[in-house]
């Protein structure tokens, strides 16, 4: 099952920030692949959503970039800035709290196996 883009839109920043917090530095393609891998293909981040988000995070000062030449092409690595680290914690706990509220709101019973 693939989740709708509406659902992903509000969580993309948090996903990217958390991945960067766990992996020090990553480049765009790597981020999409890692998400795919970790979610068993359930979440597939599109390029059209990922790069605007990365640029926005960079403009906000939450991530820093460094470039590396891979033969003839340039690769941009993203890593968290100190403010980005704080922001990640905020965002993750906000989302966790939101998920709890949604569970309660939609009356979703957690499976007990």
């Amino acid at each position, binding site marked *: 099952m693939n989740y709708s883009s509406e659902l992903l839109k509000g969580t993309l920043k948090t996903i990217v920030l958390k991945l960067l917090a766990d992996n020090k530095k990553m480049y765009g393609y790597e981020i999409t692949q890692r998400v795919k891998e970790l979610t068993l293909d359930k979440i597939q981040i599109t390029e059209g959503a990922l790069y605007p988000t990365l640029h926005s995070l960079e403009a906000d000062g939450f991530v820093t970039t460094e470039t590396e030449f891979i033969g003839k*092409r340039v690769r941009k690595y993203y890593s968290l800035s100190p403010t980005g680290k704080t922001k990640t914690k905020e965002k993750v706990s906000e989302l966790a709290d939101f998920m709890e509220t949604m569970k309660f709101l939609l009356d979703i019973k957690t499976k007990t196996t």
Partner: protein
Amino acid sequence: MYCLSEKQIDYILKDISARGVEMESLQLNLHDHICCIIEQNLEENGDFESFYQKTIKTFYKDELWEIEEETLLLLTYKNYYAMKKIMILSGIYSATAFILGSIFKIMHWQGASFFIFTAMICSSLIFLPLYFLFKTKETEEKGKKIIIAVGTFNGILFCISSLFKIMHWPGSHILWLMTIGLLGLIFIPLYFFSGIKKPENKTNTIATTIILIIVAGFFFALTSLKSSKHVYISKSYHYLQNEELINRMKQMKKDTTVQTKELIKLSNDINNACVKIKGMIINSELGQSIIPNDFESKNLWLEECGLDREFIPGEVGFNLVVDLKDKINQYNTLVKIPSKIIPIENSLVKMTDDKILGFSNYNLLNHLTQIQMFILQNER
């Protein structure tokens, strides 16, 4: 795993650019991303061209530049739509409330101050700052940004000084002069000299500068035409002198032996009505019913202006004046001696009721003072 040649790598970058992606950093992002996909997913001897075309199509809905558009939207216009909406709504409200407030003020209807106050606050604190934000985003030139900043500040100052003037708050004159000073001495020269440098803007700059000078000159003329505070201070002193004169006349021994009881009552009623109306006129301007003797040091002089809404037909002030006119007519019929009749030609009494609102505050005060003096004179 496919190995991309230098030629193919160049081709991809050029294609991304040709598809309308102009931001260099985004070009590099997409370039590396596509290269990675091809390298990872295309077989060693696979068809590069068709695979590339298939892959790039998965990046967008209609066109590749959508990604750049989305990026720019996120970067430049955070909260863009909400802000733009607020700017337009605050602008519409300011303009409407200002026009309504002005109409209410002219018609002496209740609520004029509310409309004018909120219009000025809304335009100076919400509309103009947001307008500044959007205008500066449109340009990259630092000089232009400075001109927009000075212009916006001038606009805010204009709103605030107009508000002070309309509400009769102290300091309005200085604020008004500051607004005109900033417009004439800083904004217009700044605008003119920066615009005149560019040949394509020359005519436009000259024309706009002329219009701005006319506007500044017009405002300055308005400021100068209006009497200065010295005139009002002098008028307030005259009023106080007259009040003192009335007091002294009252203290003199009164000869009311020749007057009937009815006449004495009438003269008392007339005097009381005059005091009451005077109190209302002064109160509407100063917030207290008398002009204090030390008004100058307290900045409490009375500025000449129209009567307040209490004097529109049907209101308390209006009824008091109509009643007073009636009493004066009764007084004149009762007083037998012709030399003691209160002259009514060209006075308040002869005026029709609808003319009352046309009086200025000082005008009506003078009429009332004279009536009081005539009455007191008759009792000496």
